[in-house]
């Protein structure tokens, strides 16, 4: 026995009472997901202009939250798991945002070259 007592840190204490989702909860979440899928398909018809990316992402975000919180038990798990997921998404947004802003800054240069090569094929 390497280390004396079992209680090492908060991590294992919380796992004593694992969350069992009830059938009603499962069906409820599934119904909500289907509804939101319908909403997002319907929303695609409305002419939001360049807003529709953000509308689609928002609806997808809600669906993702439902799956993560209930189907993946994040609500009932050790908060560290949720922190990990949220932080990874923050990193993705950072990576996407900066790369996108740099690429759009350089777009005129690419545009000029495209016109020049189109002008003299």
């Amino acid at each position, binding site marked *: 026995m*390497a*280390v004396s*007592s*079992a209680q*090492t840190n908060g*991590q*294992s*204490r919380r*796992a*004593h*009472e*694992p969350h*069992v*989702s*009830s*059938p009603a909860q*499962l069906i409820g*979440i*599934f119904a909500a*997901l*289907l509804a939101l*899928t319908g909403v*997002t*398909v319907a929303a*695609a018809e409305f002419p939001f202009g360049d807003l*529709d*990316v953000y509308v*689609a*992402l928002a*609806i*997808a975000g809600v*669906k*993702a939250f439902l*799956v*993560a919180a209930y*189907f*993946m038990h994040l609500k009932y*798990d*050790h908060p*560290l*798991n949720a922190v*990990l*997921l949220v*932080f*990874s*998404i923050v*990193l*993705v947004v950072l*990576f*996407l945002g900066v*790369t*996108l802003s740099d*690429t*759009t800054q350089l*777009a005129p240069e*690419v545009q000029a070259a*495209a016109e020049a*090569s*189109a002008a003299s*094929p």
Partner: protein
Amino acid sequence: MIAEAQLSQGPAPHADETFRAHHFETAEQQFAAAKLGMWLFLVTEVLFFSGLFVAYAVFRVLHPEVFVNSAALLDTKLGAINTVILLFSSLTMAWAVRCSQLGQQRGLVLCLSLTIAAAVAFLGVKGIEYAHKWHEGHLWASQYGGPQAGETFDRAGSFFSVYFAMTGLHAVHIIAGIAAIGWLLKRSLRGDFSPAYYTPVDVVGLYWHLVDLVWIFLFPLLYLVG
């Protein structure tokens, strides 16, 4: 809830020692480690797909018109059906985790089989879509033969490059998921899982839900553009 009560009288969760690895104190410690390990792996999956979402954003912002009329070539109906199929597989997977927690072996086997069936159906629909695109020539940039072909370079091809990269990588993860759930099915038929030891079911379930999560974002971004 009855199920909750029934659980508490049953054997203390994770008291079953047969599957406890020697270097862990208690089964709880092993369960907590497995969950944390899987969540860390899921974080690597999120960042793995992030590269494709960045490429999507960059190409969409650079050529918005290409994305609008190329996405019109996709069949939104099939995309929606696939989304429903995958959500259903997520439901049956979550139910399988519930069954393993309560020791309902028959329910576990049923749910796992349903999940695999839904996954195979998803791949079937994907196969139909890919065959249709192959036939029409809507392939990635260098092979693109579709309507806007012939420009100096086929910009429409860059939409389909992003499409095939995203859905291709996602399909690979679906196939890996089918293999993992198949392994779970074999072990559950052997009766390995009980309320005291259901970690593999829970962990593979997390992976499967993440694959569904990725599709939840892929569907609107690819099919519902413009």
